[in-house]
């Protein structure tokens, strides 16, 4: 049996999946170290969940940092409103906080 397939996963809520797509697309672009670390930290916060979300195709096209942050914050706002649990809501809030800090530094 493939070991990876034996790990239980859970479906990813739509708005969080969109946020993840946008953040990964940001990372495909040209970024300075601070932005790369901050977006990476936001992604880590977003996916700090057990069981992990189902795997999905990686982003192939990059997106501009400022545009991406705006889109991600919008998606996270919807994710907070529609959160199914305390942990999901707060995780979305923490991810948004990291992105907002980065946005303030730009």
């Amino acid at each position, binding site marked *: 049996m493939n070991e990876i397939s034996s790990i239980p996963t859970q479906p990813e809520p739509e708005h969080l999946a969109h946020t993840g797509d946008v953040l990964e697309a940001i990372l495909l672009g040209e970024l300075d170290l601070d932005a790369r670390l901050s977006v990476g930290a936001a992604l880590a916060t977003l996916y700090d969940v057990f069981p992990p979300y189902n795997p999905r195709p990686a982003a192939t096209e990059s997106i501009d940092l400022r545009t991406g942050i705006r889109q991600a914050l919008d998606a996270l706002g919807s994710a*907070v409103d529609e*959160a199914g*649990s*305390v*942990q999901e*809501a*707060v995780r979305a*809030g*923490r991810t*948004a906080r990291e992105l907002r800090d980065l946005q303030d530094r730009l």
Partner: protein
Amino acid sequence: MTYRQEMGRLAREVAKLLAEGGTVPSQDIPAALAGHSSVVGLLRAVQADLSATEWRGVSELSLELARQPRINDQPLTSIIMAPTRSRAGDLWTRVAKAANFAQQEWDQSTMASRPFGDTAWSEIADVATLAEAVGLLDEDIAHSLNTVGRWREAADFRTSQTGLIGVAQEVRRLAGTGPLPTAQDLQPITPETVIPVPTPKQLPEALEHLTALINSANNLPPAQVELISRVVAETAVYAAGALRQPGDPAPAALRAHAERLSAVTGHSKRIAPLRMGSGKAITQAQQIHHMLRNLQLRGETLSPRVARAAARALPPITKGLLDAAERQVKRGLWLMSREGNGPMRWTASLGSTDEPRILNRLREAHKHGATVSRFVGLAPTGSKAKKQPSPIPARFSPDRSPTVAHPSPSSGKQLEHTAAADELLDFLTGGGGITLNQSAQGPVHPREPRRLLTRPVQMVA
């Protein structure tokens, strides 16, 4: 709304604060402080009840929550009514409301419906998640306080922030090492009535009911704990007076128990309760007191059968009072007076080395309750029986106190009491109020040794 719905609402408001920032202008600082204080209060209450169930390892989180500053510039009702000047101020007000509603739902739930076993981990994870968010928001409050020159309070928030975030993360991840099943929603406590006690016949049942009311009360203010202790002591003295068979060790044990319970009196002045409770337990105790008072006025006494049944019911009440007091201290619902501690005059207990004195008095009484249970259950052994060793103080020992007789106007019988018991009964029943002789609190030890987190890691198949 149910507890889980309120928690969901609270989480959404906290998440919005995280996303949009919790820094507020000076006019909204009271709202931010009230919101912060309400969440910390809720988390402490839930965490304390959960860690009391099975896993003591997560108590480090309770300690970090206890270290969080809880400053209330204005009463919550004023804050909710007042208009806010900023989006963050509005969110903090909503957080305060949601946290208070959630705590109300939690407090009014039956113990049986609260998560236990594996399901408790879901609740622990929620508490840790919100605690981590509170730690992050401490930064925003500290920033707001700094802008208005409240540097010392700002420093308190910054100092307590790091520990809370670290421990909360650790507990959240620990909880996540296994499945987090969704617990059933909480069931509200069904309304309980108070049993009238017109005659001594109802006394044993009323005492058992008092135990049930104490055990089911989520909040029992310290003054009520003292008053109930006093009524229990009064009952013990009456029961002792009714058990007059030679060689019976029960009367002396009951008088000694009454003495220990009377020592509980006088400590509530230095404790400020945050919640007042339903008042049913104290009403039940009042019913018992009135019956005993009437009995005394008529010069009657309890029958030996009723006295023995009543005596049996007393140690569980003492235990219930101790449990209630410990629970509330642990949950941070009883604030202790700290004279000379600047603006933070009333703060929660910081752990087992920093507790109100009333707890020690109740523990001593509870410990002695075992002696009462043992002696009350024993059949009288007669005057020739070998004397049993007893921890009863000499002052209340029937062998050392001069016996006096009181004529009973109604029955003409002679009621035997010891002079010491009379003295104690006068103390217990005299005046109606409590004499508050306070002594200084014990030393404060701000840190407890760290405990290891103990959830076993569950391997994924």
